């Protein structure tokens, strides 16, 4: 991502000195920040006092610092801007850690400002002291402890620059309380970044030429895209569509990249990976040239590395050189911003002779045969709501409203990815890398703050949603009409699925006993509660949910023992998927052989 935050707004010329707290708020203004998610405490009170006395930057109060982090992530992912959070020292900072690691693994620009005890008390085990920069060092792209107020403005600007550029990520600025009070000089954002930080954005021309030549010769090509396309900005998604249109190649995507290419597009194969479609995984396995754009060959994608797409030559476009050859050897690495590289590759493709799309006919016939396998099928049921059916109906009844979808983590997340169609980038917010249960509700809140009039739905599970349920209170406070659509099977479904696969169906602690009454819980928060138990009632209930202009918790009672298929069992290759119609109880129990289990 190259673009910096939006244009600095008419900042007052910096004259004379400011307090550290004033510098922080001025730096937020100059970096185009409109919303800050936070929670006050002793060590950030000077900044809160400063926020109170101005109106340019709106502070959004959460109920837990983790919620602030995920809300800021949702805000960032749905806008392309940096998400900003403000928390106090000690427990404020440690509560932010989960969100920071989440943003690191999913490459989300997140600026976290933490208060710290006064510099003179650092190291004395003072009240609410912790080594914030030490704790957050491995879970940030970079962090700073600012001990000199004259450095504060420069550090704040650099923090935004580093969060937003290159491979985006979270940063922490730790500001001791005495520095917030001290007076110092404010400097406006600098354009010259530090010499040691120069992300490469332009792809190497020779490599791109080699890539285009390789693609042109391909008989069985595939384009495999990831979150990097989304991160690079809407233009990158546009260029991806153009490239697919020009080449006629099939395209699949990781969980993170959904929406870059439209689900309704004719070249779309659906998501790939552990719970991806049969056609996507088979095409990955059998292809002869793979073009990976802004994805990182994650273990959920590749399955068995030594059996991963064994006969293909691979082209990998990524802005982070350390992603190249990390898990999978590639033949043509292209380091650069996805948008820039796609622009060049589209230009190079157009410049050389037209290729014959009919050469791909046999490949498409093969793909159509895999498609006919209908790997996302499930057994419909007239008495019990199948979770897949619930997601399909939700999609059908909301798709014309361009909804923003967040999720928690588990079976419901995979069903949402499989059965909800995404047409545009920045509409899908899910915790991919870290797999953070409790992500979806606060993320939905953050999305709604950024898009007050949009339809924002958290497709949730009954277990995950309880981890950050307290943010319903924030949604009520800010009139953020988020819809929490819980696929309630009264299990930690994905945990149970693995226990069935690997642990002899011994369901150790994966049953959610004593769940709250979600309808009453909604009412307790001042939200609206809906329960639906019959497939026949579902459409009316979803329509009701959409029509209500305040937060809704929708308790959708689904088939308790449904499992998520298709699936690549561990230790298997892409062409050894377990398909839903083959997934009998016996097949599930034996999907991973006895020898494998003994190794655990």
């Amino acid at each position: 991502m190259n673009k910096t935050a939006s244009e600095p707004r008419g900042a007052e010329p910096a004259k004379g000195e400011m307090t550290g707290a004033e510098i922080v708020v001025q730096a937020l203004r100059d970096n185009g920040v409109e919303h800050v998610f936070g929670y006050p405490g002793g060590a950030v009170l000077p900044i809160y006092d400063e926020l109170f006395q101005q109106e340019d930057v709106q502070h959004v109060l959460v109920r837990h610092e983790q919620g602030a982090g995920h809300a800021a992530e949702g805000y960032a992912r749905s806008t392309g801007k940096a998400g900003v959070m403000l928390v106090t020292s000690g427990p404020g900072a440690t509560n932010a850690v989960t969100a920071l690691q989440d943003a690191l693994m999913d490459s989300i620009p997140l600026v976290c400002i933490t208060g710290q005890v006064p510099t003179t008390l650092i190291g004395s085990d003072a009240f609410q002291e912790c080594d914030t920069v030490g704790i957050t060092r491995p879970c940030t792209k970079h962090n700073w402890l600012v001990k000199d107020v004259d450095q504060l403005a420069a550090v704040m600007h650099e923090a935004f620059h580093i969060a937003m550029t290159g491979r985006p990520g979270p940063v922490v600025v730790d500001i001791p309380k005495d520095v917030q009070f001290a007076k110092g000089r404010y400097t406006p954002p600098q354009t010259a970044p530090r010499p040691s930080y120069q992300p490469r954005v332009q792809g190497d021309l020779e490599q791109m030429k080699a890539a285009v030549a390789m693609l042109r010769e391909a008989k069985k090509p595939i384009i495999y895209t990831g979150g990097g396309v989304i991160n690079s900005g809407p233009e990158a998604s546009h260029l991806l569509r153009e490239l697919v249109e020009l080449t006629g190649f099939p395209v699949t995507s990781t969980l993170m990249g959904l929406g870059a290419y439209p689900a309704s597009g004719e070249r779309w194969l659906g998501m790939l990976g552990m719970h991806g479609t049969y056609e996507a995984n088979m095409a990955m396995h059998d292809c002869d040239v793979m073009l990976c754009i802004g994805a990182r060959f994650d273990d959920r994608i590749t399955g068995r590395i030594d059996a991963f797409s064994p006969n293909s030559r691979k082209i990998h476009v990524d802005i982070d050189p350390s992603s190249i050859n990390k898990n999978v050897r590639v033949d043509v690495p292209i380091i650069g911003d996805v948008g820039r590289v796609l622009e060049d590759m589209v230009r190079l493709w157009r410049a050389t002779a037209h290729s014959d799309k009919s050469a791909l006919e046999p490949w498409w016939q093969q793909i159509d045969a895999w498609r006919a396998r209908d790997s996302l099928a499930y057994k419909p049921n007239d008495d019990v709501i199948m979770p897949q059916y619930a997601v399909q109906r939700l999609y059908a009844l909301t798709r014309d409203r361009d909804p923003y979808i967040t999720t928690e983590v588990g079976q419901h997340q995979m069903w949402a990815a499989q059965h909800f169609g995404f047409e545009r980038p920045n509409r899908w917010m899910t915790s991919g890398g870290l797999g953070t249960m409790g992500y979806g509700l606060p993320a939905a809140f953050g999305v709604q703050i950024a898009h007050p009039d949009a339809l924002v739905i958290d497709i949730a599970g009954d277990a995950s949603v309880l981890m950050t349920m307290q943010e319903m209170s924030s949604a009520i406070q800010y009139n953020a009409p988020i819809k929490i659509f819980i696929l309630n099977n009264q299990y930690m479904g994905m945990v149970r699925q693995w226990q069935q696969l690997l642990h002899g169906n011994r369901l150790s602690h994966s049953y959610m006993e004593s769940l709250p009454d979600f309808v009453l819980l909604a009412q307790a928060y001042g939200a609206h509660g809906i329960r639906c138990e019959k497939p026949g009632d579902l459409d009316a209930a979803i329509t009701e949910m959409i029509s209500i202009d305040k937060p809704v918790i929708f308790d959708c009672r689904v088939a308790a023992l449904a499992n998520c298929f298709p699936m690549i069992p561990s230790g298997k290759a892409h062409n050894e998927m377990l398909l839903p119609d083959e997934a009998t109880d016996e097949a599930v129990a034996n999907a991973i052989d006895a020898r494998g289990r003994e190794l655990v």
Partner: protein
Amino acid sequence: MNAQLQPTGSAYFITRETESHERRTLAILVDNEPGTLARVIGLFSGRGYNIDSLTVSETEHERHLSRITIVTRGTPHVLEQIKHQLERIVPVHRVVDLTTVAVERGHDRPLERELALVKVSGAGDARVEALRLADAFRAQVIDANTEHFIFEITGRVSKIEQFIAIMTPLGLVEVCRTGVAAMNRGAEGM
């Protein structure tokens, strides 16, 4: 790359390394600011890389640049990752694999030197022998009384190892080593 073990009955794949390990010496130029060394070391511990030796000091005072020398071991694949992961750290300017550069320039390996202080105590023949051997190794006596010597010795790692091994039966009390400082031969810089 690596051998894949059979299904482990977990959500992950367990690999066994089949490539052999190589020893490399890396020179890393960084901004000398708080936390940089912690970041570099944290990368090695967090990602399970090896450190055989590490030295660091500011080498360009005006630009506040420090040079870190790390001797590490790993498969070629891991060593490539180490270099890229180091380059990703914001205050890291450059990472040079001195071993690879040395080979490219037609040398066996980069120049590597280490300094050690070695304290030996004893009397009689052992004491005489320690001093004689120290002389043979060109170690300097930098402190002594009637019961001990402190030797200062500089050289390749193997020489220091050998010197310490020889001193052990002669009354070795204490050793302090700097770790490896390294540079490539020839007129060119890093």
